[in-house]
């Protein structure tokens, strides 16, 4: 197990280096030029040259990349000669737009994304797996058909449609919920957990409608398949209680694909649910990433891309480990 974790950690670092290099290269090769964007309509060649110095883009590409990577392991100096400032470890650079430390920007954005992801995750997992299981247990019944039908509708509704509909009904028309505020980033804040729930309820529901639809379908299909397997028949033949057969034997085996999906979805969601954050004004990583990409803010774009990759890779490792715990048929060699 330890060897497995060490091996995966090593590949994680290599993957992150590859992702960082690709992002850095794409940015350099792309049409956006942060230096000329910095001075706008009167961007004379002299001003662009000055801006390149200020942004550290006057150095050769590989030097810039090496500087950036060095900042991930030790503090480094940033800025034009004579006006440098220290970027403390872990230095993810300073924003081209606002000169803030990127680590501060990430630190500020992450709690919003976490708040959104955690609630949505709970909601869609409980509803998705629960309804999928119910549909499987009542296969062919009206309940099954209704749940499967609802899942088909849910999976085909994009976030902008669900999100705007929820805002229109619950906030604009019925005034049951407030507009989302950036004052609430966690349930431990001064406004308390209830305000936190109200603040994030609509994004949770919007995400849950989309995600739980897939979970319902996958859970139902796998559970039906599992219920038809020999070991379930054997368990029933041995006279085990239906509840024990279903939950102890059936669910553990049938849930494995759901765990895979869950791991990937958590990884993606933590990297920033771009559309959801935009629609509900949640200033998380996705919200921040969009702004950074539009304005050519390389350090912020780099950091969020790497963070998203980190979450996806870590989620994969966790999924692999979880397999063994959930399904005894899977063994780590």
């Amino acid at each position, binding site marked *: 197990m330890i060897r497995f974790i060490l091996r995966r950690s090593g590949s994680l670092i290599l993957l992150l280096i590859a992702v960082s290099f690709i992002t850095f290269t794409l940015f350099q090769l792309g049409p956006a030029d942060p230096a000329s964007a910095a001075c706008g309509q*009167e961007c004379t060649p002299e001003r662009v040259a000055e801006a390149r110095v200020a942004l550290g883009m006057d150095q050769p590409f590989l030097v810039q990349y090496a500087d950036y990577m060095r900042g991930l392991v030790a503090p480094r100096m940033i*800025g034009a000669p004579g006006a440098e400032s220290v970027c403390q470890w872990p230095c993810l650079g300073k924003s081209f737009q606002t000169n803030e430390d990127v680590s501060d920007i990430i630190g500020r954005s992450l709690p919003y994304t976490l708040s959104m992801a955690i609630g949505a995750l709970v909601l869609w997992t409980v509803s998705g797996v629960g309804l999928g299981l119910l549909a499987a247990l009542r296969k062919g019944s009206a309940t099954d058909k209704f749940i499967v039908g609802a899942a088909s509708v849910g999976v085909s509704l994009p976030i902008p449609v669900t999100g705007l509909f929820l805002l229109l009904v619950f906030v604009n028309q019925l005034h049951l919920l407030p507009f989302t505020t950036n004052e609430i980033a966690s349930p431990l804040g001064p406004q308390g957990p209830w305000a936190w729930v109200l603040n994030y309820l609509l994004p949770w529901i919007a995400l849950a409608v989309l995600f739980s639809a897939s979970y319902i379908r996958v859970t139902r299909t796998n559970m039906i398949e599992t219920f038809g397997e020999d070991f379930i028949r054997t368990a029933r033949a041995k006279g085990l209680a239906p509840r024990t057969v279903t939950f102890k034997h059936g669910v553990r085996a049938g849930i494995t694909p759901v765990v895979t999906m869950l791991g990937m979805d958590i990884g993606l969601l933590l990297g920033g649910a771009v559309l959801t954050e935009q629609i509900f004004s949640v200033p998380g990583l996705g919200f921040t990433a969009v702004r950074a990409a*539009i304005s050519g803010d390389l350090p912020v774009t780099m950091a969020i891309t790497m963070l998203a990759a980190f979450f996806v890779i870590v989620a994969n490792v966790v999924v692999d480990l979880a397999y063994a715990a959930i399904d005894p048929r899977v063994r780590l060699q």
Partner: protein
Amino acid sequence: MKTRTRALALAVLIATAATGCAAGQNQPGTAKPGGSVTDIAAHVVKSGFNAKGGNINVLMSSDFQTLDPGNSNYVQTANVGQLYYRTLTMAKETAGQPPTIVPDLATDTGQVSKDGLTWTFTLQEGVKFEDGRPITSADIKYGVERTFAQDVFTQAPQELNAALDAGGYKGPYKDPSAVLKAVETPDERTVVFHLKKPFAEFPALASRSNTAPVPKDKDTRLDYTNHPVSSGPYMVETYNRGKSLKLVRNPHWDPATDPNRTALPDTFSFSLSTSQATISQQLLANSDPNAITLDSNGALQTSDSAKLADAQVKDRVASGLLGCNDVLSLNTEKISDPDVRKAIALALDRQSILVQYGGRRFGEITQTPLNAKMRGYVAQELELDPSGKPKLDEAKKLLEGKTYPKSLTFGYANNRDAYKNTGTVVQQNLKALGIDVQLVPIPAPNYYSIMASDQLPDIGRSGWCGGADPASVRTSADPILGPNNDGTSYGFSNTSRYFDPQVSRAMFELRNTSGTSEELGRKWSEEFGKALKTYPIIPLIRSHTNSVVGSNIRNAQVGYFFGGIDLSIVGVEH
């Protein structure tokens, strides 16, 4: 910097006009019998209010790039800057009118020498920083010095600096021993500026944030944005980057020295990360009666346009024309025959283009990027239909027997549908002349760099918000069609690459001519008019902005220059 403010303001206008909806009922403005359009009337929400107190919530979709007056070229920052810094002079806004230049920290708008090369300002007595220290001429000079450090402050405003006889001065950081001789401080209350050439509009340049005082011992360079030392009525209490900003009263601001700012609310609370859609919905629904926004075009979305006439909303809409104009630049090196350019202009359906910008509520069709509110303006009428209808027959007639390019490129910034849609209209219109137009998207942040490079498209939209002095003809005319610094070719921001030996020479000489802004305005108007009649640019839209405010907000006017609610006079019922 003729620049950023305008690039800014321009961006404002640009991003501003957003919404899609054709002209219809309840649209402001009226048509004259001849088809031309009158100014769209400005609307100030509940003016005449003068009670102090309360808090205004300012909803914004993103943080300010910077609050540092030495590193800001954005109108949005200039607007909020009125609250925490003062400058030698001030551009005082009146909705629908170019701002008036009035004294601010100085006792007057400056005394000019006979040769027009030296301007002297005297500071008022009793003006202080937020820590109680008196503001001196050295603080003003240091503020100007910082803006020369372009290798540190990429967005430092450069309009004032470009006018100064500063040699190769590069700011106080790279070489602390270097001296800025163009600014002298003979005593604690006197600031003297030495110019390269006469500049009648220098009082307007002195209103730019370059002249905001900065105490040298408090200069934290790029980190100065976190707490700029206040010389205005408010100061920063808390600033959580990307999240919130709270401004509270500066106890050392003396209203007796500052008749320009009413400073009515006790506090301003900025929310810096609310999406535009949420802002517009909150304002339209009046869910926070104390709220306003500084986002472009009041953060209004395309679908919000129709709601502005609703009974619950219309009295809460501050609106007014801005100084910002959009034109189409024709690359005169590629389309070299003035008759061909004129034919292209005549063939355009500018009414359809206005629809792409959101219709009459978001702008008016213009015949020139100058306007009658500018000092010394002389009307220049083109043969374009004032209401924007195409004159296809005349266009075709002009092209008879001509050799002209049958294939052209139209470049557009890829951040707004209206730009691409304008290209589609041009594409359709020019097809009737046998010209095939290819649309070329350009990354928005680099749009103007590309327009100034060899990758310049044959046709491209360009915006201008009046430059250094929105009431001056020169600061619009010169950047749009003027020559370069030595008068031998087209200027840097002259994206049509217009250069005529006579007209451009005359413009070049006007730069060295002394006179009042009014006198020079007439001369610039005449030369600009001559250039305009060869159609290097096709005037399109002058921007009109709407901004919805909460029901408790008073004195809400859209600034001609700021393009948003003027924070210096706004108040709140509480």
